[in-house]
């Protein structure tokens, strides 16, 4: 067993768990935060995406005990019914889901992805590595390729992200 302190959505949470516990299992099974979803449990689907110290990661591929003192943001920390984040509202407006299982991961991933664009990180489809990062549909698809949607709501997801990004800029 290992004691770990996490700051989750601004709140300090203590955890005592087997060293094998992934961050995802800690969130869902130990701390009652079931917004982050377990899809493949192997980093292939992105349903478990959360932000750690502001960066999006697959919470299924990291151990909770490795994150002592880290700031974790889950979908629960982004907004709530009646007080949705701009991205959450845009997903509702554009019907950016069907079954909804991948949606928390999509929204956490997109939230952090928009910050990566603001920081001017290039992507595999950027024509120039040193120019300004642009939010074209092609860039959104490439940068969101770590989040699969089995219902294939991709066009609506891209529209939702685009609108939320334009509204915030």
């Amino acid at each position, binding site marked *: 067993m290992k004691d770990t302190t996490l700051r989750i959505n601004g709140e300090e949470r203590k955890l005592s768990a087997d*060293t094998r516990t992934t961050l995802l299992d800690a969130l869902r099974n130990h701390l009652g935060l079931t917004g982050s979803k377990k899809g493949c449990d192997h980093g292939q689907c992105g349903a478990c995406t959360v932000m750690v110290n502001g960066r999006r990661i697959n919470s299924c591929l*990291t151990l909770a005990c*490795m994150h002592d003192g880290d700031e974790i943001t889950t979908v629960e920390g982004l907004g709530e019914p009646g007080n949705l984040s701009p991205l959450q509202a845009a997903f509702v407006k554009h019907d950016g889901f069907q079954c909804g299982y991948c949606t928390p991961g999509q929204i956490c991933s997109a939230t*952090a992805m928009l910050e990566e664009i603001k*920081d001017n990180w290039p992507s*595999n489809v950027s024509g120039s590595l040193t120019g300004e990062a642009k939010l074209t549909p092609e860039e959104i698809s490439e940068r969101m*390729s*770590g989040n699969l949607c089995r219902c294939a709501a991709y066009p609506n997801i891209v529209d939702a992200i685009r609108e939320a990004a334009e509204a915030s800029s």
Partner: protein
Amino acid sequence: MRPFDYYRSDDPADAVKAASEKGTLFIAGGTNLLDLMKLDLMTPNRLIDINRIGLDEITPSDDGGLSIGTLVTNSDCAADMRIRQDYAVLSRAILAGASGQLRNKATTGGNLCQRTRCYYFYDPDMACNKRKPGSGCSAIGGANRIHAILGASDECIATYPGDMAVAMAALDAEVVIEGQGGDTRTVPVRDFHRLPGDQPDRDNILESGDLITHVTLPAPAKGRHIYRKVRDRASYAFALVSIAAVVEMDAGKIASASLAFGGLAHKPWHDPAIDDLLTGEAPSEALFDKAADILLADAKGQGQNDFKIPLTRRTLKAVLREATGERS
């Protein structure tokens, strides 16, 4: 996942010391190691968490190059303005691999140690000499679409799956390793990974308890930097064939060329004879075909991956056309 002891180190020397015990592994990003541990394909008794030992910066080196700390994430490396401007092939290669989430966790040293994606390596019910020496190779005569066409052995036809190391091989980067005796040694990336031979369980030259501390890039290579990756889908897939190329032109001739290839072998493939052939010559289709002849002279398909031989030729020619042609 099997139980293991967990120890968090805060200093490189302490981490190396802590790794002296057999069955100990370092964990950095963990994106490959934990994936394999969940399937009981890797079963360390002890994990040394090295995420807080420092070594997470990119600093200028004395010879005009850069020294990349082993814990620099793939995202930070690809986004570093010095890498983007002077080592574009490396940024391009990293950005061609994995997903945004994985690149945020994956580290420079860890990515070098990424293990193969051979289907049989991942399936404990199948024979695999890499996973269980002496058990056989199910990929030979099996599903081998993604497997090696160069440098394979009768015991293993797996490929090294990464992109970053292919660009580092083209750039002739070096891996700095701290060993158990406290000694530091430097190995070219081109010699870091092994061919399978009769020891396919060994992916690279690391000895037990070795810690990669840095990867050093030589002074920037002039010319066009290209990373071309051919894969089954447009994003988030491993290479069938990839090519890292740094080619400088001067007065219509190739002044220098450095090429490395991914997806073809158990290691990033570099053949100095190709670079030598191209250097000093005027670009032509005949020259590009000759380069492909050298690369593929000993190529051997395994059935399902036979297509990789003509695909590699076409990809190489396309890359050389782009590297030597007029700028669009």
